[in-house]
């Protein structure tokens, strides 16, 4: 076989078409082979350049993100969206004038009736920078930080089930395959600490009904795969095999990596596969993480008062408290995007008992995280997001009693909160109707939220693009408006 043809067989399809014009020269024989090899060097250089982060497009308000995703969708009715009027509509049917023919999920569509289930949790009014905000007794610690928080009651989403809902929230599209928000930020801004991944994922198990959590939620999609989220383990060592085996010292490891790196470079030149570059980068990152991760997870420098602030579970790896503390430590070390997942909010049945346990696990740590960031001066440039993938219904799924109810998925309105990083502190944005079923004021969709968050990070969501399959892709696809009411 002709060496040039053989060479092409090694190329990936994408590279093949990318090189199609050069391929025509290739067919002309050895003369062209020389130019092809030259092109290889040029290509390697251009690949490097294309991997340099684009950087900010204007002065950012936030330098990093801590995104707490509440997997399963917490109930806005029992936490944030105060509807005292519903207490007098207990067990009434959801009026058609409110439902307006909207779809139900398959889990409740065959229910005989849709009885209104008011929250059985007491709300208190907390001072903020407007005329106060009513918040549930389930989250007293978070509520006490109301002056720092921007509550949005008028979020809505397209998806009605978890998998597409989380995918939409994380990637801007219900279909899998797009890069995660964190991967986009990593791609756009790069790392601010080369010894740690720019996108780190921390997962906490919940106490309620739990849904699957796929690794593609923090995947890099078609972006170079070094931008995918790096999940730290929630039990035992956060990263496995950090210590070199006995008999291997740091210098040996370095020598080995240099040799493997040389081999990989040869492979890169031979195959032109960009993923080889990623592999080289990942080996180097792992080498550096051998030093940086033990320091990151060593809590001996934390004083007792700080640990106590995060609550009793702070030293138990994998708990939300431990992950909140780790999030602060990662933020301090310059990690761009820290994604926390708290599972178990999917309360179709037994909502009161499940949400009590869930809130007990998250409330104190997340409030402590805000306090801790604030007193270190980090809250100003750290964007904190707390959100589920959709809301929950006002009507009860299953049997309604005065002490127990369940709630189904509700994409038409839900609440989330933001803090720090240029977000307007101590305000409430948007309103829902008396049933927390429809939005009556200031609807904000997921694309708008993404556009606004990217704006706070100094990037124009229309210009953060990656060319793939012949078109430019964005986190916000062809949608999204920056919402000034959210920002300072």
């Amino acid at each position, binding site marked *: 076989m002709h060496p040039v043809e053989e060479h092409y067989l090694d190329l990936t399809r994408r590279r093949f078409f990318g090189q199609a014009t050069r391929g025509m020269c290739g067919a002309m024989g050895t003369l062209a082979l020389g130019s092809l090899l030259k092109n290889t060097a040029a290509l390697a250089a251009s690949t490097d350049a294309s991997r340099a982060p684009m950087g*900010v497009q204007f002065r*950012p308000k936030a330098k990093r993100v801590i995104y707490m995703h509440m997997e399963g969708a917490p109930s806005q009715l029992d936490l944030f969206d105060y509807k005292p009027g519903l*207490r007098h509509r*207990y067990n009434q049917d959801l009026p058609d004038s409110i439902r307006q023919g909207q779809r139900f999920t398959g889990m409740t569509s065959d229910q005989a009736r849709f009885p209104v289930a*008011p929250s059985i949790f007491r709300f208190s009014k*907390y001072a903020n920078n407007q005329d106060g905000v009513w918040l549930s007794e389930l989250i007293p610690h978070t509520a006490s930080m109301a002056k720092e928080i921007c509550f949005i009651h008028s979020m809505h989403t397209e998806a009605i089930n978890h998998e597409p809902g989380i995918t939409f929230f994380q990637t801007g599209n219900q279909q899998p395959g797009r890069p995660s928000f964190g991967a986009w930020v990593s791609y756009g801004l790069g790392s601010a600490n080369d010894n740690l991944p720019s996108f780190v994922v921390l997962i906490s198990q919940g106490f309620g009904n739990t849904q699957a959590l796929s690794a593609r939620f923090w995947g890099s999609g078609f972006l170079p795969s070094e931008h995918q989220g790096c999940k730290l383990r929630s039990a035992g060592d956060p990263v496995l095999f950090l210590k070199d085996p006995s008999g291997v010292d740091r210098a040996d490891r370095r020598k080995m990596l240099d040799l493997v790196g040389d081999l990989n470079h040869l492979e890169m030149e031979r195959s032109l596969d960009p993923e080889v570059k990623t592999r080289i980068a990942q080996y180097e990152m792992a080498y550096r993480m051998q030093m940086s991760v033990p320091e990151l997870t060593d809590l001996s420098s934390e004083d007792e008062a700080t640990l106590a602030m995060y609550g009793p579970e702070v030293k138990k790896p994998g708990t939300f408290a431990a992950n909140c503390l780790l999030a602060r430590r990662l933020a301090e070390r310059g990690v761009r995007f820290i994604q926390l997942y708290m599972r178990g909010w999917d309360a179709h049945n037994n909502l009161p008992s499940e949400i009590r346990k869930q809130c007990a696990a998250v409330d104190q740590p997340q*409030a402590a995280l805000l306090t801790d960031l604030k007193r270190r*001066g980090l809250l*100003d440039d750290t964007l904190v997001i707390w959100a589920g993938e959709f809301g929950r219904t006002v009507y009860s799924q299953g049997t309604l009693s005065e002490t127990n109810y369940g709630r189904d998925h509700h994409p038409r309105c839900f609440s989330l909160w933001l803090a720090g990083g240029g977000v307007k502190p101590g305000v409430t944005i948007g309103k829902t109707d008396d049933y927390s079923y429809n939005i009556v004021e200031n609807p904000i969709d997921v694309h708008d939220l993404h556009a606004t968050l990217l704006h706070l990070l100094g990037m124009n969501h229309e210009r953060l693009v990656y060319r793939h399959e012949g078109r430019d892709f964005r986190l916000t696809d062809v949608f999204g408006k920056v919402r000034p009411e959210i920002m300072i």
Partner: protein
Amino acid sequence: MSLLLSSVTPDALIQFGGRLHPLLLHMPIGLFAAVVLVEVAAIVRRKPLDQSMRVTLVWMTALSAAMAMTSGLLLGREDSYGGDVLQTHKLLGIGVAVGAVLVAICAMKPALRGIYALLLIATTAAMIPAGHLGGTMTHGEDFLTAPFASKNPAPDAQENRAGDESQRSLFATTVAPVIHDKCLACHNAARHKGGLSMETPDGILAGAEAGPIIVPGDAASSEMIIRLRLPIEDDGHMPPKSKPQPTEAEIAAIEHWINKGAEMSSQDVLTPVNASATRSAPTTSAPELRPPSQEAIAALRAAQVHVERVDPASGLLWIDCAAAPILDDAQAQLLLEPLRDFIADLSLAGTHTGDGILTLVAKMPNLRSLNISRTACSPAGLQLLKGHASIEDLRLTQTALDDSVIDTLAALPALKRVFLWSSGISTDAAGRLSAANLDLLVDVGASAKAEPLETEGAIALSGDAPLPGAAPTIATLAPANALCPVSGKAVNAKFVIVHEGTIIGFCCQDCAAKFWAEPQKYPVPK
């Protein structure tokens, strides 16, 4: 097709004809040259020129000159041209066209051969300045002579310029050359495209047809910067895609100048780049104009220090040492010194630095945010920062300071926020600082936890609220009165109206109608 036809308006046709001028004008130039050449050749070769050939040539010349003149007059109507140069060019052009016709007429009569020769020479001579002035309008004043201009001024001239650099304005040193090189070709007094002439400061201030191009103090809102920053494919981008583009540093310089108030005096003259010493001039007062040293940035990155521009418009940097905890004073000094003027945001948190580096920090003219949390800085070291004019944000958490630092903090005129949690500074001292400067945010890390303002009572669930949108029932419309206000008889609950928020009952429909007509006449009994 109909769309295409509908856009063919008389105005458009006139414009189209005018824009043919640059094409047509070359024909009379060539033809005049041809006529002169054949006449000269005939004299040299002593062979009389064939009269029919002469007549054909001169009439072709006359026709092409007339066409060039007509198209030129049409083009001159476009707004983007004007001024003295155009006027002279126009007069000369008309002269050439008229001359060409006269030449042609004279050429037909052998008796007028003498006048023919004189006219031919005069018209050809007039064509040269006409053509030159036309070229000046399209290509700019010095287009022809530019290749001869000295690229490197004599060394002593350069010295002189550097010497009086301080007297020269920001505009004259940095902005004017860019405008001269990249804008003036189209936006000059003779050819003010879009109604904009940038030849003088007054012209720049006057702006374009569509409005001013500069908002002093606000580069981001200035049309000039907006146009410069548009993607090059955008139709609104300036300079147009095909023209030489300013460099990023040049745009940044203009932005800086606008942000500083866009000062220029009417004496400022727009000079070409190579006549200015800007690029070699020291610019410590405005570091944005000169990119930071790439070698110094590379050295920092090699030491695991993060370096990032705070925004793409300025050369200012965010430098974060979070990944380089082993950095000590000596190393930090070595690495940061070359970038001193560019550092706007510096975090040394958690490094082994201490007071040593603060000597250098005190000399960073553009530093706005400083984080020296978890470092070995001392009150004495902090004193070095006293009077620093630009520090707005200062993070001193988890340090071993004491209350004496308060004096230093009070002597930072630009300070807006200071974080003192666990810094050894007492709450009392922090309170004094805060009281002395009410605009200063002093965060001592006190618990921000707030108690609720009010709490709702015990929850009682019921299902008795009326459904939203349900028709009002008799029960919900119970009248406030027992007796009919019109007749005085007992109220029949069937006849009720809502008047000024009160539900009023009547005995019959007629009484309700009477009340409705003159409500003030019938006081409602309780």
